[in-house]
């Protein structure tokens, strides 16, 4: 998975707030939502943003806290728009 780190080593809450504050097209998904072959970890509802052809999402690493990632996501954006559950 190619990605750019927008916000490193933060709490999940800080990452969620960052996404909500900095992007307009936001979808809320449940914990365990599958995207890029990963199951999202976090406190639901988990905000995921779409920005042009990129997906902006929180990503929790056990050792390093939570990150906000920008991932090229053309193939996932359609599914995300269709599967919003919150």
């Amino acid at each position: 998975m190619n990605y750019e780190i927008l916000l490193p080593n933060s709490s999940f809450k800080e990452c969620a707030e960052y996404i909500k504050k900095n992007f307009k097209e936001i979808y809320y998904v449940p914990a365990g939502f599958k995207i890029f072959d990963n199951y999202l970890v976090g406190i639901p509802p988990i905000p995921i943003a779409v920005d042009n052809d990129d997906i902006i999402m929180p990503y929790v690493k056990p050792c390093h806290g939570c990150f906000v990632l920008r991932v090229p996501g053309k193939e996932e954006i359609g599914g995300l728009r269709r599967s919003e559950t919150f």
Partner: protein
Amino acid sequence: MMGCPELPVQTAAALYIANKLDREGFEVISAGNKAAISLLLNSDPEKHYIKKVMDLDRCIGALAEKTMDFDLCFVFIHSDSGISYLATIKSISKAKTIAVIFGKEIEPLIEASADSVIIAAKAVHNPTPLRAKIDGVKSWAALTR
């Protein structure tokens, strides 16, 4: 369910809880990242306490896909990441969750785990305070009823 094993008490507490559960007749599966599982397996080479292990991401995936579930899930928490894993388990599993909280600053973690059974002690290197809290629970099976 274990995250980063940077605090030494995690491995000791996991082995201790696994033994207690085994004695109560539970089938215990230990899920963790590679380092956490490696510590467990190296601490129990003859598998007296740790019978089955599972990669943390695979465990989350199996729970999310509903191909597996548990009666009880102990989530080891010493940081905000642990809180995220606890919330995830509560969301994707029917298991009764037990938050095993340790480290230096446990109060915010306790507050964030309020809707789980909480076992918490200020403990980093010495597992005794955490073990005392674990011993305070007389029967884990009672939580499944």
